Every structure is written in structure tokens, then in C-alpha cells.
């Protein structure tokens, strides 16, 4: 096959300094009858903080393992490339990358310093250089070498082990660092701290980070770009703002943040290009922006974030806003925000997030059972694709 021979050559035009650090081209991975990863493609640029985000079983860990070389992709023409070179069949130790494991995977029989020096020894670093680099790596992750170098992993706390695992990877000065849910096992406060530290390390060192997580907040906090995975595919790839503000599917809208969904049918095209949509339940209608996925007579599903919705008395809705009338179900006090739950026709319940302006001084006047309309500006919604 001449094409595959040409494309698998390391000297292809893509190879070189400006090649993406990572490139997946139509990669699949099947375990027996189970398709863990299905025909995914993406590229990661140098220095990027790239997250693979999704629920368990979505294929994010398999994707990372394909990148590390622990799994080989299916032989259906898909390619995994590192710095432009096809690495489908390369063993993990031929890839010159580093990884932090979910459970840290520190070698229990080796001290902290020997854990950190292991990779340097394996990669043939000069013996005289090793102690200095180990010390530097420990300082980089803020572990005092004098105090911790001679300890065994069993003598460290969870947070300290985490730092050793990070130092063991960073000491290699890798061009690519893989992180498999490294903050999953430590408590919330330390996790927030580590999130910021990781982001800072990524920017300071210029190392490309590929980060696997199921925690959407963590992904939004740290990432330059996020690939949201669902059911062995990439559901959406974009910056945190793109993912949060323009979710393409209902899955993405639900998985990242909260969303309210409205179903209807596009009735007529307005003179300004927008569409009037007939709500499926309740007989109301609303306006949605023009888009490639909206056509007259076709079903339309939109998502609206709780904070983009507002609640008004039914007769006081501003004329430019879409509104659906309903009844207040509950008002939930969350501190920073208040969630107003509103029952709409068709057994639908939506959540409206209001900023808390002080319930003691300026309380919201909504009570359970009040007639109310939820309203949003036509441009503050996302028209969703079918999944």
C-alpha cells in the first residue's frame, strides 16, 4: 500500500519543529467486542494544557494510554503521531514522554530520591548530574530534599506522594507530560491549590500537558482546550469558554455545568434571519438565532444556562426577551446564588440562577406557587445537534 507507506514515514512534511506535539488521525481501539475509542482525530499544540474530559467509560483513559504506548491502536489506518512521527507500534520507553498516574504508582521499594532518579538512570543521564537534577525537581514541586529524599513512599502523605509523582515526571524535562486524574485522591482544598500549581508549571516550563479528568470544573480551571468525550468519541473540542458557552450537543451541555433544555419546531423565518419556534409543550413560542441546524418545519432543541435565564411576573417580561409562563416551585439558597425552580407546561422544570444580592436587605419576592415567566434573550441560547 503506497499511501500508507508514505504517510507513516517519519520524514513526512509534518515532521519537524512546527509539527503538533500530538496528533491523532482517525484512531480506534477495540478490546474484544468493546470499542473503547472510535475514530477520533485531534491535534495538540506545543505548550498547550489539553484536557480529555468525560464520564467514566467514555474512552478518555484509553486515549491517554494510546498516547503513552500502553495500548496499540487498531490496525485500520489510524495514526498516533508524536512530534510528527507515527508511533502506533512504539513501546512506551521509546517515546521520551512522562506520565503521572492516578494512584501515583511510586515504586514502594525505592526511596523518594531513587523514585525520582529512576527515569534519569534509564535514559542514560550522566551519573554526576543526577543528584543535582533530583534536588531541582524536588524543589520545583516544593518538597524539601533534606526532609523527604530518603523516605519511602509509605512514609508520605497523599499530597506528598502526589508531588513525588510529579517530580519523577518533571525531572526528565519531557516535551509532553501525561496526567491521569492525578488530583482525584486528594482533598478539595489541596486539589484547588494543585490545580493552580499545575497550570503555572505548564506555563513556566512550556511543557505540553495532556490531562485526563472527569471533573468538569477542574478542566475549565486549568485547560487551554478541552476535548469532551462521550461514548468512545470526542463530543466537542474547544476552549473552556467555547465548551461552556456553545455546547454542541445535549450531552456536553449537561456534562459541563447545568443546562435547561427547550424542545420545539421551527415555524417561520423572521425578516432578520432568525426563526420563530413553536414550543412542543404549552403552546408558547420563542425566537432562536439563525444557524445551519435550523430550518422551517424541523425540530429544534435549545439549551439555556440557568444564569442566562431570568424570572419575571408574567405581565412584566421585557418585549425583546423570549418567555414561557409557569409557576414557582421552589427557591433554593446557595450563598453566592439563588436557584429558582420553575414548573413549566409539559411537566418541565427549569432552574434559574439569580445572583444573591442579600436576602436580608433585598430579598427576592418569589414564593412557591406564584405565577411567573422564565425569560431569556434570543441570542443567549445554543441550538443543539442530535447526538
Amino acid at each position, binding site marked *: 500500500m503506497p499511501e500508507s507507506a508514505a504517510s507513516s514515514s517519519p520524514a513526512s512534511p509534518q515532521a519537524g519543529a512546527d509539527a503538533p506535539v500530538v496528533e491523532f488521525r482517525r484512531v480506534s481501539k477495540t478490546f474484544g467486542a468493546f470499542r473503547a475509542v472510535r475514530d477520533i482525530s485531534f491535534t495538540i499544540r506545543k505548550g498547550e494544557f489539553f484536557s480529555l474530559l468525560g464520564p467514566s467509560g467514555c474512552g478518555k483513559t484509553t486515549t491517554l494510554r494510546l498516547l*503513552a*504506548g*500502553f495500548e496499540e491502536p487498531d490496525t485500520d489506518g489510524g495514526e498516533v503521531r508524536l512530534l510528527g512521527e507515527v508511533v502506533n507500534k512504539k*513501546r*512506551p*520507553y521509546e*517515546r*521520551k*514522554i*512522562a*506520565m503521572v*498516574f*492516578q*494512584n501515583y*504508582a*511510586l*515504586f*514502594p*521499594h*525505592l*526511596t523518594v*530520591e*531513587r523514585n525520582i*532518579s*529512576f*527515569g534519569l538512570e*534509564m*535514559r542514560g543521564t550522566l551519573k554526576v548530574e*543526577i*543528584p543535582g537534577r*533530583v534536588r531541582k525537581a524536588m524543589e520545583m514541586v516544593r518538597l524539601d530534599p533534606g526532609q523527604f*529524599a*530518603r523516605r*519511602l513512599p509509605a512514609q508520605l502523605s497523599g499530597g506528598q506522594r502526589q508531588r513525588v509523582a510529579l517530580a*519523577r515526571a518533571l525531572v*526528565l524535562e519531557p516535551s509532553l507530560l*501525561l496526567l491521569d486524574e492525578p488530583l482525584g485522591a486528594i482533598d478539595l482544598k489541596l486539589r484547588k491549590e494543585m490545580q493552580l500549581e499545575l497550570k503555572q508549571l505548564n506555563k513556566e516550563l512550556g511543557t505540553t500537558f495532556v490531562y485526563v479528568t472527569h471533573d468538569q470544573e477542574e478542566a475549565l480551571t486549568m485547560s487551554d482546550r478541552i476535548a469532551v468525550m462521550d461514548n468512545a468519541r470526542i463530543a466537542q473540542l474547544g476552549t473552556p469558554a467555547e465548551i461552556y458557552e456553545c455546547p454542541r450537543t445535549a450531552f456536553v451541555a449537561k456534562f459541563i455545568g447545568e443546562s435547561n433544555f427547550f424542545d420545539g419546531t421551527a415555524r417561520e423565518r423572521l425578516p432578520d434571519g432568525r426563526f420563530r419556534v413553536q414550543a412542543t409543550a404549552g403552546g408558547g413560542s420563542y425566537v432562536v438565532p439563525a444557524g445551519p441546524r435550523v430550518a422551517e418545519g424541523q425540530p429544534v432543541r435549545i439549551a439555556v444556562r440557568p444564569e442566562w435565564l431570568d424570572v419575571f411576573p408574567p405581565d412584566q417580561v421585557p418585549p425583546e426577551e423570549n418567555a414561557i409562563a409557569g409557576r414557582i416551585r421552589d427557591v433554593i439558597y446557595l450563598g453566592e446564588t439563588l436557584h429558582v425552580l420553575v414548573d413549566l407546561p409539559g411537566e418541565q422544570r427549569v432552574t434559574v440562577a439569580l445572583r444573591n444580592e442579600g436576602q436580608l436587605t433585598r430579598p427576592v419576592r418569589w414564593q412557591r406557587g406564584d405565577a411567573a415567566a422564565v425569560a431569556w434573550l434570543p441570542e443567549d441560547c445554543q441550538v443543539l445537534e442530535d447526538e
Partner: protein
Amino acid sequence: MNHLKLPYWIMALVTGVYLFLHLPIIALIAFSFNDSKFSTEWTGFTLHWYERLLERQDILDGLKSSIIVGLSATVISTVLGTLMALALARHVFRGRRLVEAFLYVPIVTPEIVVGISLLILFVAMGVPLGLHSVVIAHVAFNVSFVVVVVLARLQGMDRNLEEAAMILGADELTTFWRITVPQLWPGIISGAMLAFTMSFDDYVITSFVTGTGSSTLPVVVYTMVRKNIEPSINAISTVVLVATTVLVIVAERLGRDKPLVADKD
């Protein structure tokens, strides 16, 4: 550490159990220094029975055979057993379940049956009886024990450790020696010690497959006991006991990590 004061009856029970377990051994050691031909009364301290050992060529030959057989059988069964445990834990292959099930057959088979069947096999195959037939027999019943012990250790081992080593740059062989083996070391050592003990200790199977001039210590002792018993048996047992204890301590020390740079200051 919280020191709990135990009720007296528990202390008494524990002391009783330990005495029950160790009193015979203490008696054996004590009587190996007893200046009497009979192990029933204490008549004074002597090293005579230890000197006498050097004159008893049959005991020394038995000890030599036991050590040769024990070490050979231990090394062979530990290597085979460890490799088999690795295969069972790390690879999916046809007939794996069957292999696993048959692993327990030698463990539960009565020794007398193993002894007779091995003898029949050796005779049928024309294998002459001697030290090597004893070694083969010991390997046959030891392998299963080593596999079971090492397998337990392997199943408790984190597979990510090997992956971590590989991504750090270690190839399969280096990973095996630098990470897998040290992790399995306690299991391998206990498997080997179990194998050596059982080999050193075995009378029934050995008595079937041993040939002239290849009698191990238990066989020699048993033959002696049938004729006349003398305290040099106590002496040789004490020597074996001390040697084994030293070995266990040495093996335990070997498993520890050394620092990256030797301490100078």
C-alpha cells in the same frame, strides 16, 4: 502507639500456646548438650554429641544429600513456580483455568500417593534412582506451593508500577528486574523457604524414590531410630535449626533499599 493492657487469662493462653509450640524445640536443643546417652535425664553439659557428628559418616552424608537436594529443588521450583505465577497472573491463554485448577492437585494429594506414583513413573521410564530422581520428585511437589505464594503477591501488586517504569524509559527486561522482582521478592523468598523446608523435611516421598547412597537426612534419621537412637540426632537438628534461622535473617536484610548517594556527613 496505644498500649493496651491485656487480661491475664489472654496472656496465660498466649504463653501456653507458645510453650506448646516451642517447648519441644527447646528440649531438643537442651538435650543436644546432655552428657547422657538417653534423653530422659539431665546428667551434665557436653559437646560430645557435636564431636560425634563428625564421626557419623551416615549422618554427614545424609546432611550433604539433603542440602544438595534441598538447594537444587528450591532453585528449580522457585524459578519455575515464579515464571508460572507470572504467566497465570499476566497472560490470558487457552487452558489457563485448567492449569490453575491442576495447580492444587499436588497440594492436596497424599504424599504416599505421590511417592508411589513417582516410583512407578521412574521405573516405567527407566530413570535410575538416585539424587536426581529425589530432586525431580521434590520439584514436582514444591512447584505448586511456590506458584500459590508468588501468585498471591502478584495479585496484590499494582500493575501501574510496571507501566510507570516503562514510561520512565525501562524496557521489559529492566522493568522485570528493577521493579517486578523487588516487588515479588518477599513472595519469592517465602516461596523458596517453603520449598526448601518441605524438601529438607520430606520423608515419605523421598523414601520411595531414593536410591543407594542418596538417602537424605530424614531417611537416615528414620533408619537410625529403628536401630538405636543417640543424641547426635539432637545435635544435627540443632545445627540445622541455627543455620535456617541465620538464613531467614539474611534473606530479610537483602530486600531493603540502599540510598542514592552513600552517607558521608
